[in-house]
């Protein structure tokens, strides 16, 4: 058990080290927090549940429309961005990014990290 957790933490730490990333979390598809690197732990569980709902709702919406599964959900606000990507059938990855950094590198790294998380949880 500690091994898998260590490996998830490694993925999250690497993700957190990408420029502009403020927080990141691995979340189960049904909204339970697996692990997270965040400032305020109190809100991590709600953050996890809401992120899973967003991605799930987005997937349901586009699939119903016949537009396929979305690659990611990006939410933009004045204070920053939130990006959620699926990581296999069991989990998703969520990051928050500050408002000044370009998303390009973040998205590439997020894609890689999601692939790794998917492999881990199979």
């Amino acid at each position, binding site marked *: 058990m*500690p091994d898998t957790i260590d490996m998830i933490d490694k993925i999250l730490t690497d993700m957190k080290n990408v420029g502009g990333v403020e927080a990141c979390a691995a979340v189960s*598809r*049904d909204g*339970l927090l*697996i692990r997270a690197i965040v400032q305020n732990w109190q809100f991590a*569980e709600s953050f996890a*549940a*809401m992120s*899973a709902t967003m991605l799930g709702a987005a997937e349901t919406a586009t699939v119903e429309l016949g537009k396929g599964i979305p690659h990611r959900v990006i939410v933009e606000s004045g204070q920053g961005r939130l990006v959620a990507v699926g990581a296999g059938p069991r989990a998703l990855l969520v990051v928050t990014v500050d408002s000044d950094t370009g998303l390009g590198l973040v998205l590439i790294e997020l894609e890689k990290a999601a692939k790794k998380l998917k492999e881990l949880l199979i």
Partner: protein
Amino acid sequence: MIKTGIPKLDEFLDGGIPKGKSLVYYMQPGVEGEVFGMQTIYSALKDGGNCVLVASSTIPDITRGQFKEFGWDINQFNNKFISVDAYNPLIGAPSKEKYIVSNPDNIEEFSRIIVDIIKQLPPSTIVFGSLSTIMDLCGERKVIEAVRIWNKMAMLYDHVMVYNFTAWPYSQETLDLMKGELFNAVISIGGIVERVIFGQYFEILKSDWTKEIKRSMLFRVLRPGGIKLYIPKILVTGPFDSGKSTFVHALSTRAISVDRLGTTIALDHGHVDYKGFSADIFGTPGQERFDPIIRLLSGESMGVFLVIDSTNPSDFTRAKQMLKITMSYGLPYVIIANKQDLDGALTPEEVREQFDLPEDVPIIPAVAKDKIGVYEAFEVLIDSVTGGI
């Protein structure tokens, strides 16, 4: 009888550990187990008992600091709490404790001090911070023989013996003894990975003063707070406008909702800290157009609250359907007969009849907006989730 202070464990042990008995917290390497012994010390002190901590893996001062981290003020019990320092001498540092094992790698000396304590002190709870450390220093066989003697002496002098033991790769014979005949009770503590739930659990492997109970409980270690039983997900579902969000908010220590135009559109999420339990509550929307989301979020639940509007029996069919959508059949569930304060509210008996529910499904009358019935419902559900006793 002393209480272990671990939620539910005392219940499982018929009240705690009787005087003269020994108990080992048998931990897999890598789990946060040391807190078990500490929580037992704090619980015993709080109930007015005397305690001895045999500190063999850290200096006693650090252990005192750890108590503080958990929010347990042990300084107020200074005259009832004694540390045996078996660590400072190891690193050549001076010690200010009354009892010092000057050669912690010498089991004879160790044993002499422990036996002295057993003979001199009034009936106490004697906790070994790390029996495995002593084993590493003195050798497996010698320590096992010493433990046999300590436990016998403790029985004569009415002490309670509690050991923290980490199951490093010792010889199979040693591990079998630790799990078997050496102690009156064995609490095993380990980690699990079940799909995406990464957790720690404890279970009673043995207890010679109670009926056998094979039941494992998930727990989390909170700072402050210590060991809390952890229930990753409890689902709150029910038809539109039955009061699910109100129920989630009434029950939760903190909660958030995604409400638009007065109805839940995504989910309610709440966190409950109550009577040693820590649980996350997921409230689903009620309207049919959100059914795909309900299905998505209801996985991995350990129990379900089905909230119904007691004044609106026409919705009961939908309520049943929602149990199906959430795949909740087979999980423990409790019916919340909400809105009992309104005219025309059906009594729980009438609800049972109209709903055609089996006798063993609990129906709790509630007024969620006034927090009436919500904690009762929580306790009932927790009891069935944990196989209540």
